[in-house]
């Protein structure tokens, strides 16, 4: 562990890539607002969450540099998300079967 200073051996991408990502984020926001005008019934939540996930992936990978950082950060994020999913899925095993289906 001799050199713990700046481990960025690669250059930051120029402003252009970031502005492109930003444009994508704004675009996705527009899409998600537009879609809320349609009646998607039970798909509403799924579509909204899916778009939010894509937006988050853009922020995480490009703005937060996870794409170019060392793999350990990807593993960390994966573990965090996995644990959260376990929590919500097991809770829903209770909820979905507790109430009589209407």
């Amino acid at each position, binding site marked *: 562990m001799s050199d*713990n200073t700046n481990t960025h051996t690669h250059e930051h991408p120029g402003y252009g890539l970031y502005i492109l990502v930003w444009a994508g984020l704004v675009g996705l926001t527009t899409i998600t607002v537009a879609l809320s005008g349609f009646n998607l019934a039970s798909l509403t939540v799924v579509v909204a969450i899916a778009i939010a996930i894509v937006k988050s992936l853009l922020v995480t990978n490009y703005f937060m540099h996870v794409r170019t950082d060392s793999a350990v950060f990807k593993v960390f994020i994966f573990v965090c998300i996995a644990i959260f999913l376990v929590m919500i899925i097991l809770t829903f095993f209770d909820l979905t079967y507790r109430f009589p289906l209407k």
Partner: protein
Amino acid sequence: MSNEAVVTHVHRDDEGSKMGMWLFLFTEALLFGGMFILYASYRFMYPENFKVAAMRLDTLIGAVNTILLLTSSLTVVIAIVALRRNQKTFSIYMLLFTVVAGGAFLVNKYFEWSTKIHHGIYPKGPEMANLSDGEVVFYGLYYVMTGLHALHIIVGLVFILFMVYFIIKDKQTGDNCQKLENAGLYWHLVDIIWIFLFPLFYLIH
């Protein structure tokens, strides 16, 4: 026995510092994650009431706030690139833009909340007795989640203002800016939380 003061040298470990920040971000993510679990559970239990309650939220303000935060995330990243290129002043201006955008978000939030409160829609407020259980829960979740989020925006803004100060004093420079990057990471998380809050509260139609 030595009478000289013992000094331990502080080692520098940028990668470790980044790791520490990410772990802290996970704690924030799960703090909100717990609230999201509650949101999901109650939306499952009260689907119609949630729709009714959500109609009173202003989609336009919500969308504007989303764009504000997304843009402020962009300016934070640009500020970091600028600092690495030793463009100190430009970096500072970008960070100040971030602060202004975050401030504008909070101003919007203030107007949203005061409108609701004016109409008696707040915990133990006069209008709440007229609402169904699901709507009461919806607004409870709304106030807690957007309130907690706003608190985190304030913390993030303070963090960034400290970074502005450090840059001015050359404590964060082109080849020593892990603290600034960590502040950026925090800000992006605050942005991501809002990316999920927005559709879940404003776009249930």
